């Protein structure tokens, strides 16, 4: 009762009302728009990614996400099911006999989202811009091989190479950097790598319509799209860093589907699957989860230690208990289903006794009363670096820590967010690195090529393997395998390279990973695409 009479309380209430209205005023307009779009019956699907979509520039890397680049920009050719190269922005192409000249006949009905024409000139301009920063794209061997680009006429584009390079077409399907932005997108300096884009103009089925950094991005259907138009009008991509948050949001219907690899933990996937309320899907194996040992470090330089680590790893336990049996055990660096990767080797089966023996031989002896092995008074401590935004890596890392502990190996876990993780990885500041292969269309040739380059967009493997005496030899073989025109020699070299890597035990392949998809029952058309990083947004539909 006295509240009414009290001046001070009244003042407070007034203040609070003002405050409240301020907060309301500040609150997001996005939801209003969401609601509005629901009202006008347009179809919207919402999903989430771990990070921001970035500046949406196909010619650069981090912080760009593959999936968003693929939504807006397109390539000359498309990587179809089973690795079949399909026409895309190029209707057809001719390859010269010596394999050094490629002539592309472009589609004539393609327009950029700003209505400008897609033609050979803009293709050349994009290529040339990319080639200006050749060093940065070193990992794409094709770029190293390009000698000349030429617009023969308005819709014909010619690529001349230094050598005949067998994966040329395959590399043209890559999501980055060989995709095309419109004329108006180029910065004044014309250098898209250093100065970014003026605006995001692509030919793809989606146009970025609203964007709030680190919160969400809204893509609207490109009504002028030349190909099959997407079924939904809008895609909302929310940024949710944490896997558990993602699952919660999905359960609360704030997300329509979950898609990707490592975006949720296996436990959550299993939980969602078991609940029976949602549809779940698991793709064919795409890439290999693997540990990489740093051969420059004191302990892991020793072949015996690496072997011991291989033998001591209980892959089956990981697959049974962490992956719930959903992923297949990996014994080789690349899934044997790929071209050239089916090799005949003796897998390192789980054998603790063998591991202990190897460690003893390497000089790392158990010390009475101490938990960890020592050599010359130094504890056997290995730094294990993994990516903290991947929801699967952490549980494996902790498992490894616990399991190796039994052998007297102290694993120090270092988890870092994506960007820092890769930086640290490239610097080689770790003993064991959690990594994975790149999946098709990159595996195996681009992945192996990246082993040979130390550029920032190569692989951390380059540095990691520097400690191997055979390193030079391996690099040369990889260079050779990419350029050889002889199918048989190529096959032989691949077998040779992969066997050597297996024999040196620098990798510890764990399992072949798959993409997961979880979606509500009103969602359809969520099929896995050939490229792992692509999200099937064109086929998706919502009821």
């Amino acid at each position, binding site marked *: 009762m006295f509240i009414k009479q009290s001046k001070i309380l009244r003042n407070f209430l007034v203040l609070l009302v003002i405050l409240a209205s301020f907060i309301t005023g500040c609150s997001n307009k996005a939801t209003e728009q969401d609601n509005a779009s629901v009202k006008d019956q347009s179809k919207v699907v919402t999903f989430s990614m771990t990070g921001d979509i970035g500046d949406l520039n196909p010619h650069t890397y981090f912080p760009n996400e593959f999936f968003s680049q693929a939504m807006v920009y397109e390539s000359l050719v498309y990587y179809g099911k089973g690795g079949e190269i399909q026409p895309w922005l190029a209707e057809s192409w001719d390859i010269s006999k010596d394999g050094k000249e490629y002539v592309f006949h472009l589609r004539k009905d393609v327009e950029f989202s700003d209505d400008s024409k897609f033609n050979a000139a803009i293709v050349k301009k994009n290529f040339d811009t990319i080639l200006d920063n050749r060093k940065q794209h070193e990992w794409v061997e094709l770029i190293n091989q390009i000698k000349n680009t030429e617009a023969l006429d308005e819709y014909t584009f010619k690529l001349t190479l230094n050598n005949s390079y067998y994966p040329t077409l395959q590399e043209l399907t890559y999501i980055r950097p060989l995709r095309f932005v419109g004329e108006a997108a180029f910065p004044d300096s014309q250098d898209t790598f250093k100065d970014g884009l003026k605006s995001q103009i692509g030919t793809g089925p989606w146009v970025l319509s609203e964007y709030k950094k680190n919160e969400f991005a809204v893509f609207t259907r490109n009504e002028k799209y030349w190909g099959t138009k997407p079924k939904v009008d809008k895609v909302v991509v929310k940024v949710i860093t944490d896997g*558990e948050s993602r699952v919660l949001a999905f359960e609360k219907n704030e997300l329509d589907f979950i898609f990707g690899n490592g975006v949720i933990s296996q436990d959550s996937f299993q*939980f969602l699957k078991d609940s029976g309320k949602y549809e779940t899907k698991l793709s064919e194996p795409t890439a290999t989860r693997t540990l990489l040992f740093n051969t420059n470090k004191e302990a892991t330089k020793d072949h015996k230690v690496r072997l011991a680590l291989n033998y001591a790893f209980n892959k089956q336990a990981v697959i049974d*208990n962490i992956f719930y049996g959903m992923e297949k055990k990996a014994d080789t660096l690349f899934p044997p289903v790929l071209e050239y990767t089916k090799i005949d080797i003796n897998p390192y089966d789980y054998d603790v006794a063998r591991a202990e023996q190897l460690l003893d031989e390497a000089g790392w002896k158990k010390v009475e009363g101490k938990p960890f092995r020592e050599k010359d008074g130094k504890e056997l401590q290995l730094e294990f670096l993994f990516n903290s935004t991947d929801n699967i890596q952490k549980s494996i890392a*902790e498992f490894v*820590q*616990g399991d190796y*502990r039994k052998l007297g190996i102290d694993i120090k876990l270092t988890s870092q967010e994506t960007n820092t993780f890769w930086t640290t990885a490239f610097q080689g500041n770790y003993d064991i690195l959690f990594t994975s292969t790149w999946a098709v269309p990159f595996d195996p040739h681009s992945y192996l090529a990246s082993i040979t380059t130390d550029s920032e967009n190569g692989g951390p493997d380059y540095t990691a393997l520097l400690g191997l005496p055979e390193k030079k030899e391996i690099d040369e073989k990889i260079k050779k395998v990419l350029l050889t025109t002889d199918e048989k020699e190529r096959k032989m070299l691949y077998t040779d390279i992969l066997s050597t890597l297996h024999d040196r035990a620098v990798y510890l392949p764990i399992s072949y990973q798959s993409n997961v998809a979880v979606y509500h029952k009103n969602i359809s058309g969520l099929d896995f695409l050939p490229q792992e990083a692509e999200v099937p947004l064109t086929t998706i539909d919502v009821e």
Partner: protein
Amino acid sequence: MKLKIKMRRMLLKHKLMIISSIIILGMIGLALFASFLAPNDPNFVDIAQKLQGPSSQFPLGTDHLGRCILSRLIFGTQTSLGTAILVMGLMMFISIPLGIFAGFIGGKVDYLFMRICDTLMAFPSFLLSLALVGILGPGLFNLILAMVLVQWVYYARVIRGMVLGVKEQNFIVAAKVCGTPKFIIIMKHILPAIISQVVVLVFMDIGGVILAISSLSFLGLGIQPPEAEWGMMINDSKPFFRNYPSLMLYPGIMIFIVVIAFNLFGEALKDALDIKRVGGGVE
């Protein structure tokens, strides 16, 4: 009648004090004898046993790596409580001499001291600790360093205030006039006068220190795996908290109980010391 209520209230306070000190002693006991009390090795990973319910082998079940939760909780007492006590101890080690020094000497020394305090206290303390850990890198040592470096000012300032309060008292002036040396004045008059307040302060605040440590660990910046720490255990159990809420519940309850026990104890101690003073006057 009134007296009865008073007595009851006093007893209630005593009860709280007794209960809270039993909890605190129990926790310290757990920490000291963790290796005897824990049924299992807290760091022993057996992935095949993961996320098990309570059983005779694992009284509270296992976590996502098949480690015994009870054992981890018990060993967590060691890390959480031990770190908090260490941090508090270090802060006192710095701030008691400095606070007394600044307060007693006064003048320019005090002025300088106060300006340093003002500056350090202009930072939100948790943020500064966080930044320090961030820059020095995560880990137990850096965590302790960051907390002590940031928070000692607060205590030094409070202690300085206490000293100033005592210094105002005429018995200090009288002691000076009596020719008592400064050091003796500090040891005989000032220290005893503030020490009970400092003890109360320590007990009232140690709960906050425990919370801050577990918060940093929760963010992954404090104690590193596989060492068991409650805040980290909560973070670890995040992925499972819908199916296995107990995973998150247990360490949370542990933190909660310890902190509330310290808070209650501090409060009761404060009241008890007040009552003594009043009582002394009436007798």
